[in-house]
């Protein structure tokens, strides 16, 4: 078993919904992340899948400490990351980095590539100019860009190259974990494969762990060791990727997988068409959050909330069907 890098315990993030301009009265909460638990292992990729609004991005922001959790904890080496201050926080910032979806907006258009890539080093670690320059050259080479790229601006690159720059800047501080928030969905099909291969190679070379947030199931299948499926701020299923893809248990996971498009026109598949849309996270339905759309809902599902339970081999499912 690889060592644990980061542990998320009963993590919650509620955003208040307010009414009125001056006396802002809180009338409810958006339960973006509603009590989730998982761990990320060293050198492994954890895939987080689900539809928009399920809390994937909020989860990654909480891990980056860009949002304060409403409840619960995130532990790194047994220490709660919320308690980090000063140098400890700076160290944490170099150890956890991020690559975002859109390389057109995530790179500052007014900074040269070398400054973008070196930023995390310069801000959080006391490095000399020479050290920074050497490191920039090194990581640019790692992501397959020429050293001359360092003196250019982001607009001089194509989308795939920009995403390589974003990856280089995340790598520069030798992090232990990189959050990849939809890293390839803004790229063209032929370029996606280049970037995905690059990320897999970098993991093998440097032993960095990834938290991969994506809605494309095949991307997660290709890259992730463990997969977590989220629905309305809760984890409905969690397991080793291969097991989860071969044998999805939760009705939502099954519907999600069946909605993935076929690889060949003759491929036969039972499409499970879910009725309606994801309910509002402000007033989630009672019992299991998925029951209004679930094709196999029972009476119990609308009254009692299921808990995430291990059904053998680290395959966790939150559904009354398996009780």
């Amino acid at each position, binding site marked *: 078993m690889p060592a644990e890098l980061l542990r998320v315990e009963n993590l919650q993030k509620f955003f208040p919904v307010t009414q009125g301009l001056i006396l802002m009265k809180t009338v409810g909460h958006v339960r973006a992340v509603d009590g989730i638990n998982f761990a990320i292992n060293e050198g492994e990729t954890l895939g987080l899948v689900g*539809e*928009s609004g399920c809390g994937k991005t909020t989860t990654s922001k909480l891990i980056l400490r860009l949002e304060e959790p409403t409840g619960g904890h995130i532990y790194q080496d047994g220490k709660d990351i919320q308690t980090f201050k000063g140098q400890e926080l700076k160290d944490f910032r170099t150890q956890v980095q991020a690559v975002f979806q859109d390389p057109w907006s995530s790179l500052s258009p007014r900074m040269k590539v070398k400054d973008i890539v070196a930023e995390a080093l310069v801000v959080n670690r006391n490095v000399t100019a020479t050290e920074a320059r050497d490191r920039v050259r090194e990581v640019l080479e790692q992501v397959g860009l020429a050293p001359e790229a360092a003196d250019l601006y982001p607009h001089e690159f*194509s989308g*795939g190259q920009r995403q390589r720059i974003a990856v280089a800047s995340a790598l520069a501080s030798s992090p232990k974990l990189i959050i990849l928030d939809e890293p390839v969905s803004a790229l*063209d*099909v*032929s*370029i*996606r*494969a*280049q970037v*995905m*291969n690059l990320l*897999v190679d970098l993991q093998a070379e440097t032993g960095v762990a990834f938290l991969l947030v994506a*809605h*494309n*199931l*095949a*991307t997660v*299948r*290709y890259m992730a060791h463990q997969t977590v499926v989220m629905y309305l701020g809760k984890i409905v299923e969690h397991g080793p990727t*291969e097991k989860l*893809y071969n044998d999805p248990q939760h009705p939502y996971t099954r*519907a*999600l*997988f069946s*909605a*993935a*498009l*076929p*690889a*060949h*026109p*003759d*491929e036969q598949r039972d*499409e499970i*068409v*879910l009725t309606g*849309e*994801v309910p509002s996270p402000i007033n989630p339905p009672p019992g299991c959050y998925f029951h209004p759309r679930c094709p196999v809902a029972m009476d119990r599902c609308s009254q009692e909330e299921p808990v995430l339970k291990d059904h053998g081999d680290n395959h966790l499912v939150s559904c009354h069907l398996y009780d």
Partner: protein
Amino acid sequence: MPANDVVLEVNDLHTYFFNKRGVTKAVDGVSFSLRAGETLGIVGESGCGKTMTALSLLRLIPKPAARIVSGEIILDGEDLVPKSNKEMREVRGRKISMILQDPQTSLNPVFNIGDQLSEALGIHKPLSKAEKVVQAVASLRNVRVAAPERRLKDYPHQMSGGMKQRVIGAIAVASSPKVVIADEPTTALDVTIQLQYLRLLKDIQAETGLAIIFITHDFGIVARMCDRVAVMYAGRIVEEAGVRNLFNKPSHPYTQALMDSVPKMDRTDRLFAIDGQPPPLYALPEGCRFADRCSHVSDICRTEYPPVASVEEGHAAACWMLDPKWKK
């Protein structure tokens, strides 16, 4: 199928942009035809000219930078290229319409959807206010919007992305056009909602005999939706085939490479990545446009554009490897 089933025929269409850089050949000799009730997929990456082809069909290309330089667009027996703007207004919506990618921006935020539907319904035939309401409700029901009477007064921001895209679909088919162009209509939607929407389009097509041009970069959508596929690269169609033929026997190296670079749900072996990028459309090479990225490239590929060769019945590709003259 009789030949008069053909509703749209595009012959050797060229749409160029003229600007400081010179001439950008966005659409450079595209030909295809479309039958009633048929779905044609146009597949390609950004900048390959698929959206410009679609906009040319509607004559909505950005002016004055872009111009249809030559070619014919024969819709329902009439060539659209020489038509005046006024004449085109009669064609758009009534004979050909379009569904765009982003439902957040294609509806007007300051009008409720009842008004926007009524506008589309009333544009080609005069209707009274009451008739408009009745028809608007009917067309919302047609796209399976629940409780349509209550949604008429809703503004776009009150609806979800999937719901808005349904309304846009309703507007597109409001005047029963012959052809609908769907330009990546589900890219902004979640997978479960995407499936609902794709099924809805199929249902509407089965009911009305509509021909659909589906512009996409997703082979999954092609496999699920299309009867025939045209693969575009750098302004030209490089391969055209029935959907099964294309998946069973992709014959242009670009099609093969593109298919191999898509991750699959049941496989984790290393992805094939196409090196490099497409050539800029203002500086196209003389020979095959894929030559620089092609693993089978030979001398002739760099000097002369390959002729279109038949692979099998109804399946053609523009590649020198399919030519009798080919030797490596």
